[in-house]
């Protein structure tokens, strides 16, 4: 009978392979020990990518509904003919451009905050050496500014909705206005989620989290925040161009 040695390939049924040296493949055992900073960062980013994929699916389906509904001929009982009832919305352009600028600016400050936090996390071990001080001056509060700009964007969107109402466009006025409200409000809800994450990250140091935990929170919220910007630009373009 053949002895079971690593050089005996018994692969014809699949599954059985001589034991490879346990390398590659898994995450080299990092997971089981308390994961180090880089591993935790990678794990959190992986989770974020999944989350972003989900949000993308939500907006992809809303977009396809948008296109479908826009192209749909509807039967009009009064004239016995097919008509397009998509309608139109008189968007408050100025306001929306200002909001876009706010969000754009917040994305920039967010990125600065992220890099700042990354630097701090990298230096954290050095700081802990007794006698070594990297100066106690507080770094510029980019995160706080981002939060303010984020609230500014939400307030601006709120004003835009009021302005739409003033101009006589409600969620049920016509399909076009329904989608305008639907897309902007859904985006705002997701952005508000991002704001909560930002506040969470900003208060991490108050809640006695390590610099590394804070950095991870900042990093994740930052990428989510950039995604929110891209999403907003996309929605704005959809509402503005594919009207």
């Amino acid at each position, binding site marked *: *009978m*053949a*002895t*079971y*040695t*690593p050089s*005996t390939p*018994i692969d014809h*049924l*699949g*599954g*059985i*392979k001589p*034991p*490879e040296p*346990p*390398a*590659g*493949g*898994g*995450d*080299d*055992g*990092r*997971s*089981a*020990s*308390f*994961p180090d900073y880089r*591993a935790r960062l*990678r*794990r959190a980013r*992986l*989770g974020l990518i*999944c*989350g972003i*994929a*989900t949000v*993308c*699916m*939500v*907006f*992809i*389906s*809303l977009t*396809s*509904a948008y296109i*479908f*509904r826009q192209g*749909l001929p*509807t*039967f009009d*009982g009064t004239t016995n003919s097919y008509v397009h*009832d998509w309608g139109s919305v008189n968007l408050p352009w100025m306001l929306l451009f200002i909001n876009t600028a706010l969000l754009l600016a917040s994305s920039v400050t967010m990125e600065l905050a992220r890099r700042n936090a990354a630097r701090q996390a990298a230096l954290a071990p050095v700081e802990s050496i007794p006698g070594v001080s990297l100066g106690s001056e507080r770094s510029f509060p980019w995160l706080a500014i981002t939060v303010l700009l984020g609230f500014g964007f939400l307030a601006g969107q709120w004003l835009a909705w009021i302005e739409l109402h003033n101009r006589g466009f409600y*969620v*049920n006025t016509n*399909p076009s206005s*329904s989608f305008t409200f*639907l897309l902007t409000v*859904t985006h705002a809800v997701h952005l508000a989620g991002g704001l909560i994450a930002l506040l969470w990250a900003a208060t991490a140091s108050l809640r006695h989290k390590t610099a590394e935990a804070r950095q991870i929170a900042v990093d994740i919220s930052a990428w989510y925040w950039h995604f929110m910007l891209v999403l907003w630009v996309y929605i704005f373009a959809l509402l503005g161009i594919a009207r």
Partner: protein
Amino acid sequence: MATPVSVHAHAAPQGFIRKYIFSLDHKVIGIQYFFLALTAVFVGMFLSLLMRIHMIWPTAVLPIVGEIKPEQYLSLLTMHGTIMVFFVLTTAPQGGFGNYVLPIQIGAPDMAFPVLNMLSFWTTFVGFIVIIAAFFVTGGAPLHGWTGYPPLSAVQSAGPGEGLGADLWITSIAIFCIASLMGALNFITTTLDLRAKGMSLMRMPLTVWSWFITAILGLLAFGVLLSAGILLLLDRNMGTSFYVPLINVNGVMMGHKGGSPLLWQHLFWFFGHPEVYIAILPGMGVTSQVLSTFSRKPIFGYKAMVYAMLAIGFFGFMVWGHHMFMSGMSPYSAFAFSILTMCIGVPSAIKTFNWLGTMWKGHIRFDTPMLYAIGFVSLFVSGGLSGPFLAQPVLDIQLHDTYFVVGHFHLIMGVAAIFGIFAATYYWFPKMFGRMMNETWGRIHFFITLAGTYAIFMPMHYLGMAGQTRRYSQFTEVAYQTKLIPLQTFMTYAAIITIAAQFIFVINLFWSMFKGPKASDNPWEATTLEWTTTTPPPHDNFGGVTPVVHHGPYEYGVPGAPRDYVMQNDPATYAAH
């Protein structure tokens, strides 16, 4: 790695609440999901019992529920379908067993995001409470079926139950979507990032592959259902016209105009078809695992099994139109959807033949898990064969919305997935609860259930071909259907017996939990990592040791090995070198 001793990310919790209620331990959460699904399945089963009784004795006055009115029949049907699809078939295999077993099988101490994991469970739980609440509000539960087609589902005044009941129904589904999305995110990250050293993708047990692919499907599908549900809520409550055309309900013109019910159908089925695979894929994984273990043979064509599941998942997103052949779609699209649907038959057949190949000439041990796995294969074949029939637009025009479809999806999705759950329960019960379930009662339960389900669902195909339509509460007075009453009566008796037999299962479950014989660490002599740790596993799964994987998942009957199986973490010291 230099140090085998690990520090678990969170310490073992103290106190009842942190340990059993708001636990972060994936094993506790898995068991919570399992019991949630067990509760749900009994609710769903009870509803189906009422439906079957109403069908043949439409005027019977039943204890507690009284006489079932036609609209109440529709509520029963809707709640039965929704609870079964979401809170049983999606909850138990993925949330329950996936949660419990996946981290252990890849050698991880827990899920990637334990807090998120706890949140997904409690969100699912809230979703379940909300849907059950629909029974108790004015008007009762909704009437629109688990598929929720508008305009019925989109107009508050369309019927009793379409008011608050339907709002609760949609809200519950939206909550469920969010819970599933959080779960999917966790499963994907865990599988990609937490595998132990040596656990390469192609060494993952097929169960892990199936949970992983299911999670990907969930991640991509539930977002679509969520947006579809938001549109529905807006149509119902904000007067928009996404789905509702110009419509007159009970003599009243509704304010809507220009919407399209087909938009819902597209969005719903874009989710709905992947959803049926979300329900069945974990069952496929468990079946592969169990067939290989109890045949004492490697799984036949491991790689083919993986690629087949990937192909099923991939094609699953391109066939939603086969639920809409009757919607007046262009014959060219119908043709495309038809061909793509038939394509799924290929990977499905590959899996079936590989299962048979696995058992072929094996030293089969007919323990209860094995019986259920074989039952799964049987049901998958009988239910799957009617798929290609339905995939023909020409035939589907006759068969759509008849009992033929009901028979098809109950065999393949309903009962096959349930058999997967049973196989998983009997298989992992020793690991989860530290004791063995009773074999004799397990087998009795199996044979009654197998015969019973075939007796209930096989005749449905004939009913359908004879023109019996789906979702009608009363037909005993319809002339051309009266000839079918004896068959219907037979099915109802079969249902009563089968449902009664499920009590054997629950009693066995609870009795064994406390009184069953103690289980060893590896009672089935299986190879995967969950059987390398103690029974039940410690809080961090491996008691501070980081497992290292040296073997594929199904190394049975390896020549030269001391036993007929080689554990995945066996460093192969007996090899002659």
